[in-house]
């Protein structure tokens, strides 16, 4: 067993921290305040290969792995959680399933564009009446010659407004329930496809979360991803991978908040000494940092197992559950340490607190993660 980072991982951290510090963090407050999608950051990340970290070189990716990818999402999120989720949704929820389930033609067509960041990816499963219960899909796909015709809508879709390609789940055979769901690769220019209203969110306010509308949307049969009626399995497996990304995002938010807090408690003086000199501060920080490091070990474990090609659903669920709840705990305490200043937008912990909450909700709520974990335990 070896817990030390490899030289490559250390060099990668140096790179991603340098990038985050100079390109991501300085925009975080503005992206939040103006609910602005940081398109310029996405372009910069594309140039550096950050949009295709675990994608093989033959498909135009960086040839990295999921451990490096999770490190990237963590570091980016420590600076700006919006930027972290853009990369996570793009990579885990769009590029990864195409790599996993795509035909050679689909991979050749979509992966180079996604891995290079020329195209941004998104994923559409959730519907107004199908959240945690994803089986209640109301989007319908019917055959029309060489095409499928999709009708329905998806909500809360990360990257929606700026994506070029979407993985969309739709019922191909309603009589079969979850076994009648299929996955489709849908391009934004396909006839009948449109992006609907943008959500006004509490946190990750720059991530362009919108509704997707399909009105007689024409999707070539060649764009069905995986087997016909095999979409639910694809969606669940995809979310397993996505949870590594979201766990890394939560971890990054937590570490970012601790970093801000450590800086603050050393500077802030009350009763004649820095508040870092109070044992209350010291003990609480010790507990929080321990939780963060435990979260990181869980994230790295899940990513490592995915890289090794062994089952990792439970590990990913644990990582997401624990990291998300850690992020909530840490950001809440971080504000407390900052006192009144922490409640203002003068300090980034206020934003981090709002950003943290979503990590307990999307890509499977904490309750869903507990179901996955206990299900494996009690089977």
């Amino acid at each position: 067993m070896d817990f030390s980072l490899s030289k490559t991982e250390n060099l990668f951290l140096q790179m991603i921290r340098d990038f985050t510090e100079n390109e991501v963090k300085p925009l975080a407050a503005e992206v939040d305040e103006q609910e602005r999608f940081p398109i310029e950051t996405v372009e910069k990340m594309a140039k550096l290969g950050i949009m295709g970290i675990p994608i093989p070189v033959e498909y135009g990716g960086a040839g990295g792995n999921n451990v490096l990818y999770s490190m990237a999402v963590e570091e980016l999120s420590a600076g700006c959680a919006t930027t972290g989720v853009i990369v996570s949704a793009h990579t885990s929820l769009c590029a990864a399933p195409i790599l996993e389930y795509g035909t050679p033609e689909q991979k050749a067509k979509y992966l180079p564009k996604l891995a290079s960041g020329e195209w941004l990816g998104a994923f559409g499963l959730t519907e107004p009446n199908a959240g945690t219960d994803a089986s209640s899909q109301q989007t319908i796909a019917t055959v029309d010659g060489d095409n499928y015709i999709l009708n329905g809508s998806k909500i809360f879709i990360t990257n929606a407004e700026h994506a070029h390609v979407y993985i969309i789940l739709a019922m191909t055979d309603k009589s079969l329930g979850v076994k009648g769901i299929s996955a489709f690769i849908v391009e934004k220019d396909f006839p009948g496809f449109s992006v609907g209203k943008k959500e006004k969110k509490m946190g990750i306010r720059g991530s362009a979360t919108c509704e997707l509308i399909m009105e007689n949307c024409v999707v070539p049969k060649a764009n069905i991803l995986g087997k016909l009626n095999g979409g639910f399995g694809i969606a669940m497996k995809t979310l397993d991978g996505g949870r590594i990304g979201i766990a890394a995002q939560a971890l990054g938010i937590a570490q970012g908040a601790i970093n801000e807090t450590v800086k603050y408690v050393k500077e802030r003086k009350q009763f004649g000494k820095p508040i870092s000199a109070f044992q209350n501060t010291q003990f609480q920080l010790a507990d929080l940092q321990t939780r963060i490091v435990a979260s990181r070990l869980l994230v790295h474990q899940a990513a490592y197992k995915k890289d090794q090609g062994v089952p990792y659903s439970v590990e990913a669920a644990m990582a997401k559950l624990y990291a998300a709840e850690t992020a909530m705990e840490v950001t809440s305490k971080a504000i407390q340490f900052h006192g009144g200043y922490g409640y203002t937008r003068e300090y980034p912990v206020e934003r981090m607190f709002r950003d943290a909450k979503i990590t307990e909700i999307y890509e499977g709520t904490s309750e869903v993660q507990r179901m996955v974990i206990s299900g494996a335990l009690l089977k």
Partner: protein
Amino acid sequence: MNIVVCIKQVPDTTEIKINPTTGTLIREGVPSIINPDDKAGLELALRLKDQFNAHVTVITMGPTQAEDVLREAYAMGVDRAILLTDRKFAGADTLATSHALAGALRKLDFDLLITGRQAIDGDTAQVGPQIAEHLDLPQVSYLQHLEFDGKKTFTIKRKIEDGYEMLQVDGPCVVTVLSGAYKPRYMNVRGVVESYSREVEIWGFAQIEVDESKLGLVGSPTRVHKAFSRGVKAAGELYEVDANEAAGIIISKLKEKFII
């Protein structure tokens, strides 16, 4: 077109802190980085690679851990990396350093040799011009911008105190680059992933043909007689006086400190 860039691994001096009670340097935990002027030089080389398909070699002289900066250079996009390391080079001042580097550079074929203007741990700005002299090549220091005609001529903007000079020189030549001249690119993910699987050539005394008497401590005309810290900052003086008197105090203090 072949370019060689000399880079140096240095402690990040902006991270060095002084122990407030003893006045000594706290060196622990200070990260090692590519010297900023050298990194700008590396960026210049990589831009020429992008534009003219130049082949870029980096060379660094230092202890074995200096390999780290070569790995970083690979991750930024260079083609070849050489680590010049030997106990015989230890303790070298700028002249002895330049002899060792010049010895290695004689083994390489290049049209342009790039160094940083100066290293942040020494601030001497000497090694680049000294190498140029040993290799009998023309030099342009304080480079702010460079244009290449695609054949053999470089037009160089050299920054001076109150403006700049435009100079023209044919390759091969040596330039020393200012850190502000080119904003270095970030490493890229693929470069990082592949960096440690690429070869870093290790060269030592055996690979260069330089008389041992010119190298290391033996070959260094200068010696450190003593080193000392600047000491703890004394408490400042505070005056509560009218504006006229205040201006007088400020001026006399600044004169005393040779600031004006």
